């Protein structure tokens, strides 16, 4: 066997797991924004239903792909140190409260669902950060990026709902909030990329490098421009804003998918020194692939 020790793409967490980060992040972001919306007197049912379905769908997807799905409840055994257990602990009450909020549309339930959704989103971010075998995931600056993109996706979804439902008051507020969320997300992305420089395998850095242009361009610059144009062209406001929201949402999903599925190169192996063999001499160490 000739293994050189270079990092390789992990295959333990594939797109099935990535879907949970995609939909869970969007769903919790949406519930968070919907909670703010209820304070302004906006309807709660539609965003609550959608948020609930997105989170439940992601969790169902990942649960079905456990090696032993019938033991799923064992995931509740380690709240002391495991963020996966903590996510499961939050998920139960969150789904219940979101369901009640969707059915009853009480402001208090909406606020509670929003708070639980924020916790759920934070758990998801920490789950990735604690995966210490994957350099692109364990970087602490990934946490603000996951939070920012979850929020941006939530605002984008809320804006789409507002446009489809004709909630005029919510449209303007959602548009402004989307602008702010996109700025926060691109700043978080820059911070993450900067922190990762030299701290991840070359292959992983290459994946993120290639993702940069479409993420920044289609996911930030385009929606920002569309929203600005929408302000000046009232007749086309709705379709332009919808396009901006859609681009922001898809970019968020795209970057999370790229980070989980394509940039998940493992640590690889390294030696601090090469041994002296036979009459030869020892030498410097090696960290292949970095």
């Amino acid at each position, binding site marked *: 066997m000739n293994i050189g*020790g270079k990092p390789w793409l992990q295959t333990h967490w594939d797109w099935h797991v990535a879907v949970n980060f995609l939909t869970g992040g969007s769903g919790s972001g949406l519930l968070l924004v919907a909670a703010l919306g209820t304070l302004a007197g906006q309807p709660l049912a539609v965003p609550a239903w959608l948020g609930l379905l997105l989170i439940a769908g992601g969790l169902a997807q990942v649960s079905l792909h456990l090696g032993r799905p019938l033991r799923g409840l064992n995931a509740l*055994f380690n709240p002391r140190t*495991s963020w996966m257990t903590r996510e499961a602990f939050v998920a139960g009450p969150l789904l219940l409260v979101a369901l009640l909020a969707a059915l009853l549309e009480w402001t208090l339930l909406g606020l509670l669902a929003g708070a639980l959704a924020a916790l759920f989103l934070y758990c998801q971010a920490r789950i990735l950060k604690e995966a*210490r075998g994957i350099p692109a995931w364990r970087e602490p600056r990934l946490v603000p990026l996951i939070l920012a993109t979850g929020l941006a996706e939530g605002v984008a979804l809320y804006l789409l709902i507002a446009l489809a439902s004709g909630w005029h008051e919510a449209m303007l507020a959602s548009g402004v909030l989307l602008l702010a969320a996109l700025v926060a997300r691109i700043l978080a992305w820059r911070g993450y990329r900067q922190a990762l420089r030299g701290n991840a395998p070359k292959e992983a850095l290459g994946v993120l490098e290639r993702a940069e242009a479409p993420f920044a361009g289609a996911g930030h610059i385009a929606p920002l421009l569309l929203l600005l144009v929408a302000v000046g062209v009232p007749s086309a406001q709705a379709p332009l804003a919808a396009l901006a929201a859609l681009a922001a949402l898809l970019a968020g999903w795209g970057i999370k998918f790229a980070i989980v599925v394509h940039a998940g190169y493992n*640590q690889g*192996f390294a030696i601090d020194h090469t041994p002296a063999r036979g009459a030869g001499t*020892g030498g410097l160490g*090696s960290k292949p692939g970095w």
Partner: protein
Amino acid sequence: MTRYVMVADLERCVGCQTCTAACKHTNATAPGVQWRRVLDMEVGEFPDVRRAFVPVGCMHCADPPCMHVCPSTATGQRADGLVTIDYDLCIGCSYCAVACPYQARYMVEQPAQAYREGRMRSETQRENPGRLGVAQKCTFCSDRIDYGQAHGLTPGIDPEATPACVNACIASALQFGDIEDPESNVSQLLATHKHFRMHEELGTEPGFYYLWEDR
């Protein structure tokens, strides 16, 4: 206190993979699963090229990230430092596998066979269904250690109480013992040789040391 560790002398290892074969034979791991493996690393560029054979596997870290992330508490740690997996608790989420910086963990979903023609008799007879769909990794042959201790033997010294890979090593490159005992074989080796641990900067405090000489 006892903490069992493994020591690999990089100058002695010849990359024969006997330890790999001994581990597979002892633990009946599935095709593609190598709890103990030996890397063949080429370092440098022509004409200044060196070659190193590097045994790797579960490092039985003192601060194991795999244990901290495990949602089911299936991954645990014994008082003697061995990192364990309870196959009956594990849900197969693979979180431990992505938390391990040593790529030491495996998941086998279905019964596997080495050859297309069908399963070998050994594969059928020695299959452990409890290991399907759950995380698995090197145990430092904990069953051999426990057996040895129950019979007054010393792990690392008496073969019956020593991991199979260490017993099989043709060059005595692999050694095993209690690092908390200053008189043990591993403590003596570490006291008299230069050594390092892999990915020490990650702070997992691996229980696997590599010896080297500066000459």
